């Protein structure tokens, strides 16, 4: 919900977005970064 004063309060839809898509995005980033780290450890010195 957006208040007239300018405050953003996360409504049910935004909370649902965060708990589903937001968590998915962050989990995928963690997996991608873990893969990058393994790549640099395996091929690095």
């Amino acid at each position, binding site marked *: 919900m*957006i208040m007239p*004063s300018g405050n953003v309060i996360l409504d049910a839809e935004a909370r649902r*977005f965060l708990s589903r898509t937001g968590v998915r*995005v*962050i989990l995928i980033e963690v997996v991608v970064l873990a893969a990058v*780290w393994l790549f640099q450890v395996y091929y690095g*010195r």
Partner: protein
Amino acid sequence: MHAVDWAVVLVYLAWIVWDGLRRSKATHEVEGYFLANRSLPWWAVGLSVMATQLSAITLVGTTGRGYAEGMSILQLYLGLPVAMVILSVTVVPFFYRAGVFTAYEYLERRFDAKTRTLASVLFQLSRSLSCGVVIAAPAVILSVVLEWNLTLTILGIGLPTVLYTMVGGVQAVTWTDVKQMVVILGAVGAAVGLLLWQLPADVSLGGALHLAGTTGRLQALDFQWDPTKTYTFWSGLIGGLFLMLSYFGCDQSQVQRYLTAKSIDDGRQSLLMSAYWKIPLQFVIPLIGVLIFVFFVFNRPPMLFNSQHDRAIRASARGAEYVALEQRFGDAYEARRQAALAAAEARKRGDGSVEAAEHAFGRADADLASVRTAATALVREVSGDDKWGDVNYVFPSFVTTHMPVGLVGLIIAAIFAAAMSTIAAELNSLSTATIIDVYKRYLKTEGSDAHYLTASKLVTGFWGLVACVAAIFATSLGPLIDVVNRFGSFFYGSLLGVFALAIGTRRATANGAFWGGLAGIAVVAVVAFTTPIAFLWHNVIGALTVVAVGMAVSSAPARRRIVS
């Protein structure tokens, strides 16, 4: 350049201009011209967001950096996925429901006209100058590598872009961005494929990557806590988060992309495309540079990649010194090649000699690098330019000298595409900010839609000319480019701070936001000029300063009232 490559570049230019111009049929009113009547699908907006962000400087500079230093620049994007999630639940629904044309329009609704005008004018100043740099940087490189006339190269990139952006508006920008992104991805894929194909028969991909890894080029993540280092895991995750929040959430050139989406959900999906794909893409682009490094382990590279400076230094009084260095470079190259073959062979055998062989290769690579450093120092002394470097010339130089006919044209077209997609979005957003935040707000408050549409097209053309002129001057005023880039970095964190005050708290007042914004810019300028703190942290410092000063100023009048 071969006639076939010329044909590829000219066909690309004709295709993009034609596609952009035909979009004018769908642009009959200001909302259609600037926001496509909020009708575009998420995937087109998502590709446009990515194309706008990926400039020619990114494509050419990042591959060059991959060649010279490795993959560390990937860390710049670590904060991006989290930023996209935050923006998806804050500014995307917020701006969309508010029905604004510009992000700054909202600042007047929340604060006052002076805060809106400050933010919009700062955006217009920094973007118009950076637009010149976005044209100038690839034009300088292409004109040297392909021996083209510099002014004509600038106009070759700038004028077609100005033409279709001016006539077709945001529809033209978005749909040409989609095609330009396809050209860029095609060129990136072709470059990776060709580099893998050109590996020597007795060196596997794994062996090649081990060679690059031996030199430290595959170290993409650096967990060291050092605020003076430009790219570390922490600067990318924290500073990069603030930078991406500001760029995608407060910079009109990006905000306008997702305002064209047909729903809030489409706007979110368009940003999430970058959240999912930006890090993998930014892994592949510097990897091209790393693979070019591997290619030049087995094929002799030029000592310097800027052929113009190479010729100039040979003809100078210190030409003999340069030739002697080149002799040393040739010997060092041959020693490195032999060491690389020995290391690849040892790895294939899988015995205990791998470590020693790879260390020998590492030492040989360091020897070669030291000769190149000496050559660079010589150029700096002769030219008087103590920041001279040639990493931006590595990729175009490799393309024009080692890629087959046809593919050269595709990659030159991709460099054009990367520049044009960024310039088009910037011109379109500059025109929006000028018309909505200045012209319609102050100069002609009552006018017909047809009048504002005509004015919008003329202003797009005006900004296009400013960008081309700025590009022509930027090429002869090297340090100006630094000033422009620095000015942008002063502004970004502070702008984010102003929006954080607007959206995040009820207590912030107009004066708080205005003075907080100015204080943020001033503090970042002082930090940038007097400390070695890396630029990604400037965004954090700027945003936090604005919030702190803004809240302090906002609470000051209340205290006075209590005292009186």
